[in-house]
């Protein structure tokens, strides 16, 4: 069951259970009312700790939040950090040389300008420049972060990227996997990196993922099939 909420709507919640507020929700400090501040689909879930409530909304502009997995482009390098762009025309974030697995003062990472990295947002204070890291500082593992070599970038809306990454029922990757094998890194900043063995497969994946945005699940299979057929016929011509 999905309910659409719009900023200012009234929300009925069970007052006896503690409430955890997620993105898109706001607690008025005076009246103690809980109000949605973004337009989207209302999500509620109950757990032992209490009820979680948040708004799932789709936007184009990315704002960093702690714990987000992102794909960024290195745009500059300084004495002790890289500058990383997470989205065009947005404030860049920084990536410290020490935020790599096995990093030390002598052991510098070898990324160059223009490289793609998969990283995790570690600080995101609104007054400060956000920081990302290529090592999971919560447990010290490298967790697949770091340089993304080769491949191609697809830009999608933030909501689409989130459902691709978190929604286990989302059939797109499963359907794609039936056509070719690929490596993929999904950034919640709306950038998806994909790499396959052959250029034509990457092209087909690129077109399929771009086209599947905003379509219903049952259309995915046909879209993917169409694009894979197209790339094979172009070769034969």
């Amino acid at each position: 069951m999905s309910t659409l909420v719009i900023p200012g709507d009234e929300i009925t919640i069970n007052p006896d259970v503690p409430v955890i507020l997620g993105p898109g929700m706001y607690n008025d400090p005076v009246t103690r009312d809980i109000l949605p501040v973004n337009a989207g689909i209302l999500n509620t879930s109950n757990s032992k700790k209490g009820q979680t409530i948040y708004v799932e909304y789709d936007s184009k502009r990315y704002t960093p939040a702690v714990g987000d997995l992102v794909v960024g482009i290195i745009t500059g390098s300084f004495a002790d950090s890289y500058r990383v762009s997470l989205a065009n025309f947005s404030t860049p974030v920084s990536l410290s040389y020490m935020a790599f697995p096995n990093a030390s003062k002598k052991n510098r990472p070898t990324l160059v300008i223009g490289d793609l990295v998969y990283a995790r947002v570690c600080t995101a204070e609104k007054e400060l420049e956000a920081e990302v890291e290529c090592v999971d500082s919560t447990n010290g593992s490298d967790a697949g972060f770091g340089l993304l070599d080769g491949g191609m970038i697809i830009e999608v809306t933030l909501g689409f990227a989130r459902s691709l990454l978190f929604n286990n029922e989302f059939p797109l990757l499963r359907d794609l996997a039936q056509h070719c094998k690929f490596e993929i890194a999904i950034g919640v900043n709306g950038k998806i990196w994909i790499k396959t063995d052959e250029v034509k497969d990457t092209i087909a994946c690129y077109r399929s993922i771009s086209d599947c945005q905003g379509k219903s699940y049952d259309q995915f299979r046909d879209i993917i099939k169409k694009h894979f057929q197209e790339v094979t016929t172009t070769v034969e011509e």
Partner: protein
Amino acid sequence: MAKDIEISTSESKFILEALKQNYRLDNRTFDQFRDVKIQFGEELGDVLIEMGKTKVHCKISSSITEPYEDRPFEGLFFISTESSAMAGPQFENGNNTGEDEVLISRIIEKAVRRSGALDIEGLCIVAGRKCWAIRANVHFLDCDGGFVDASCIAVMCALLHYKKPDITVRGEKIIVHPVEEREPVPLGILHIPICVTFSFFNPMDMEENVKGESNSEIVIIDASLKEELLREGVLTVTLNKNREVVQVSKAGGLPMDALTLMECCHKAYSITETITNQILKEIKIDNEKRDKYSAILSSENARETS
């Protein structure tokens, strides 16, 4: 233009690699021009052109003014191109002095105005005293490459579509008849220039391009935004249906073999032909739609011709 869009090395390498293997991201062949969608507005001379995601709007307006002193028998014709942040965040509001903006407006100026596509002598009303001033305002609404091509089509469509009010001259006095009173008159169009833009990519290194004999450079027609950002050279050819070269502009960039460039010009001609025909056809359809009284006013007898 488009300076701040960041493209990663992987992405640029991939696009070039795909081009080497004959693929373009949007499933077009190298010589394929995007489909042009022409939409006419309610008013005359109001046109919206769509080519893929690129959107360009053009509106023609006219007024009566005094001609230039040194050209008493000619009317005035201005084209102003305006890029605003509406077309994309890479464009700055009110800043039209960027390299690309200047090149775009100069090419359109040369293609349409300097080539005499509009009969400006026909805009003269009283020599040295009164003439029509025609203005074309081009606005870029959305950007996915190919601005020059799209805006040239937009200006030409709008000029063909526009009709200025009819006038009567009695000595010094000029009477302008409202559109409701008298059928307005179309502008005199002498030829229809069409711009076709080619983008060049270098699959090898610079040395091979300068010294090599292979001429392996990749040539594609009507690049999309990403391709425009990555291309190493660009050539805009403007032709009309009479097999005339109206304007050619290759302002630097990758050095290209003269024969390849000639080949581009010939390819451009067939595209010019198709687009000209499409424009004329759509103008005709729109005119018929507007001309609701023609059936009544027609002097021919309606006769079955079976």
